[in-house]
């Protein structure tokens, strides 16, 4: 193996783009690894950890290219691939405008030029608050996708926003739908009368997709960021979102999607909703509370709509035998979906280990081999260092699915797949291949490995719900549109008694 590390000054690309560039360069024959990123502390650290000898003097404005290949020829081929990919990007960036035109360098500048009302900020976490403040000062509402924003900055940002009557959705806000525009990771749902206020990204996607499948539409989905309903942040964005939806003519009912929230914040929001005269239902994920599917069903009942049978697709070629392994292995892209799986599973299985464990359950690193019942979130920070979110770059999870196929203790593989804008353009094809391989490996070892997939999406999504579901079912996976139902199906495959929704708590928030 031979290494090469090169610093290119005055070249800049965003991190997601560079992760995709790295991914493409890695496909060059003979290239073992390619880490191509701006010279941030994080990226340089990753390169050094991977064994590259990175010279000093690279800064966050320099592009650093670290390549490892089997010989010099392969290294040269890797560089050629990089040149070609960068050239492609360059040509794309020059596609419009005369040579002396200057692109806006700040959100404020872009806002002045266009009169846009909303900014979508997905810049690196330590700088994101600057871009968000710039947007707020320019009078724009912000969807702040970036994470790693300190809570004090979040509070200052939200106070500044309230003073200017603009909304900050985030930080760490994965999904929003505003005026029909799907922002971030978002599904294409029909327009309608239900407003969604969401402190949880994939949770909101599950809720909106189920509403869509039930024939109900969404007026807007306003994200809050995962911490908004904590005592510290105190629902600053939630209050603004609720007021805006209450004044919105299209919205008749509001669903608030969140992880367990601070009592006083919930009480405060309920008071506000009553004051505004807007009916609110809660989809709160937590122990002893209705699951998201149940919460959607309550909402449908509240607006007088029928609850349909949530679509499922049975696995093709399933042996129907009881699985040989005893453990549940959940490999998720959506953090909230993973949480929901653990809440439902632990009632039957007891503690579930995870890289994002529920309170009181053991924590494991997502890169370790799991023992016993385990649910991993591949979207967690630990597993996204130096690579894009698994909804964009699924390679790490696909590799893990294949590994689990060879593990005799793995009884049922529980997966999610989230469609929509921002997600991988053909996620089902690659996932189906991995499922097929994992199952073939298990079969080769004389075992049957049932696979259950939660598919979050709509038929209007760019990837199309039905064709994705059929591809997965053809690969031998049982496919569910309700995550709660998928988890229960996985549990019954393991021979564990499926838990039912605690009916007595249906009316609880």
């Amino acid at each position, binding site marked *: 193996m031979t290494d090469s590390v090169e610093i290119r000054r005055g070249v800049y690309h965003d991190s997601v783009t560079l992760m995709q560039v790295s991914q493409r360069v890695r496909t060059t024959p003979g290239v073992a690894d390619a880490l191509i990123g701006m010279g941030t502390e994080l990226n340089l650290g990753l390169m050094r950890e991977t064994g590259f000898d990175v010279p000093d003097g690279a800064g966050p*404005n320099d592009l650093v290219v670290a390549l490892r290949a089997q010989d010099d020829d392969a290294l040269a081929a890797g560089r050629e691939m990089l040149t070609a990919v960068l050239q492609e990007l360059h040509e794309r960036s020059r596609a419009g405008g005369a040579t002396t035109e200057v692109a806006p360098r700040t959100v404020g500048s872009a806002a002045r030029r266009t009169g846009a009302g909303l900014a979508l900020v997905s810049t690196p976490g330590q700088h994101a608050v600057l871009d968000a403040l710039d947007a707020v000062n320019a009078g724009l509402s912000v969807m702040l*996708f970036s994470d790693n924003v300190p809570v004090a*900055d979040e509070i200052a940002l939200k106070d500044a926003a309230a003073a200017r009557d603009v909304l900050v959705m985030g930080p760490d806000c994965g999904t929003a739908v505003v005026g029909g525009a799907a922002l971030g990771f978002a599904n294409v749902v029909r327009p309608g009368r239900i407003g969604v206020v969401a402190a949880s990204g994939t949770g909101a996607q599950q809720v909106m997709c189920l509403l869509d499948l039930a024939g109900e539409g969404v007026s807007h989905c306003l994200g809050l960021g995962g911490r908004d309903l904590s005592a510290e942040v105190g629902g600053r964005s939630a209050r603004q979102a609720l*007021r805006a939806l209450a004044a919105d003519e299209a919205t008749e009912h509001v669903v608030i999607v969140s992880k367990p929230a601070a009592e006083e914040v919930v009480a405060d929001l309920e008071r506000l909703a009553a004051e505004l005269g807007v009916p609110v239902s809660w989809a709160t994920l937590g122990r002893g509370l209705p699951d998201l599917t149940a919460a959607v069903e309550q909402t449908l009942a509240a607006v007088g709509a029928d609850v349909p049978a949530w679509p499922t697709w049975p696995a093709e070629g399933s042996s129907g035998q009881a699985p040989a392994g005893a453990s549940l292995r959940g490999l998720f892209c959506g953090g909230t979906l993973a949480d929901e799986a653990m809440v439902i599973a632990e009632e039957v299985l007891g503690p579930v280990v995870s890289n994002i464990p529920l309170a009181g359950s053991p924590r494991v690193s997502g890169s370790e081999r799991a023992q016993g019942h385990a649910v991993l979130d591949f979207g967690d920070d630990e597993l996204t260092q130096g690579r894009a979110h698994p909804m964009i770059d699924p390679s790490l999870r696909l590799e893990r699915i294949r590994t689990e196929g060879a593990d005799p203790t793995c009884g049922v593989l529980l997966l999610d797949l989230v469609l929509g804008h921002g997600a991988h353009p053909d996620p089902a094809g690659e996932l189906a291949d991995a499922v097929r391989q994992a199952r073939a490996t298990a079969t080769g070892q004389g075992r049957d490995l049932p696979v259950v997939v939660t598919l979050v999406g709509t038929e209007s999504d760019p990837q199309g719900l039905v064709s994705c579901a059929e591809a997965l079912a053809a690969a031998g996976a049982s496919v569910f549109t309700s995550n709660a139902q998928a988890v229960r199906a996985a549990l019954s495959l393991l021979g564990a008694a499926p838990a039912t929704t605690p009916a007595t708590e249906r009316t609880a928030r």
Partner: protein
Amino acid sequence: MSTTEQPLHGLLTRDPAVVAAGAELFADALRDQAVPVADVEWRPPMDGTGEALATVLADPRLTEANALALERITSAEAELVRVAPASEALGLQRGEFLHSGPPLTWDRASGPMRGALIGAMLFEGLAATEEEAVERLSGPDISLAPCHSRGAVGPMAGVISPSMWVFELRDPVHGTVSHCSLNEGLGKVLRYGAYSEEVITRLGWMRDVLGPVLAEAVERHGPVDIKAYLSQMLQMGDEGHNRNRSATLMFLRDLLPHIVAQVGEGGRNTDDIAEVCRFVGANDHFALNLVMPACKLAMAAAKDIPGSSVVVTMARNGTDFGIQLSGTGDQWFTAPANTPEGLFLGSYGPEDANPDIGDSAITETAGMGGFVMAAAPAIVRLVGGDVDFALTTTRTMYEITLGEHPALQVPILEFRGAPVGIDAVAVARTGVLPQINTGMAGRVAGTGQVGAGLVTPPAEVFVQALRALADRVSATDGRTP
């Protein structure tokens, strides 16, 4: 809550239009939905400014303070009201000298600054020889102060001594006054550090003839509207820093009747008057010394606005580059000046150039000079670069300024207003540095001009300034009950 206003400025009812910063993927996803998207060409902020930027951007005073600064800058007027000796106009005492840029001591002064100070000592009769001048300048009897500390400006070395005559400009809107020396022409001149006999003789003539004749002409004419020259010169292909021909000729045109009328009065003979006209008309840079104090008035109007991040001063003394912000009072933020790059006269080359010098960057501070290069494409033949560079430069400066000057317009950009009001926040946020067109002085005292070119401030001054502004924000927060 009953209000006719839509909450969130109608975010939920208007057609979505989005500004996207960060991952291109999300912008592309919006374009796929036919949502209009403006992409930000994002870069990390200048090293070491992240925390200060977060503090300053979260200061609730910032937006309004900067809007007020912009309003004051663009509403400032500039009238030439008199010409008088610096001793009178500025109250300069014998042994007091003003110089360009941030504060400076003799031991740190560069070649051209030393040359100019030596020349001023000889001119004032404070020394008979160069050696004596040097000795006294390094001693305790001579006091040096920045022109800016007296509301004045001076090109290149910017040395003003009590006997030199100065223009006095007044802003009737804000009631401020500024001063600038009279321009000596090109070649071997004091401001470029030359102090030969030819230089001292010329200064004497300027004191005895040029100054008094111009003073009388201005007196007879009444206040001369210099701001109008600034607007007009941009329409005539000059940018006010390295091209001042049109304003020079407009000035001469306006004063000519009042200059010529002085023949035979107060002992002025035809030769004196003819020489004054020839001197002013033949010096393409004569009006630089009117443009500069006019720009100074605009920036003085924006001084001392609490919370404002607007740069009100950019100035160099040949050793250091210094800036001042509206929100940080008279505090200077300095770092070693860069050396300009550009085109050289005769056989001079890059090794002959002194680091950046002069208060003339007040033109860029007020949206003239390098900021309106697009209005003066011919400038590239003097400072280097090509016409596309001139256009790109002006367009880029909009990214670091607060707004557009309604009276200073750039014809080739469809009469778009000049980029004005440099925002230190935007500079730190983008890493884009203000572009300055400048003359180059020889690094050895006595050389004079060696060329002209392009230069930027050292980034470090913006880092310091931002931090100081952030400290003041934090201090203010602490006092708020």
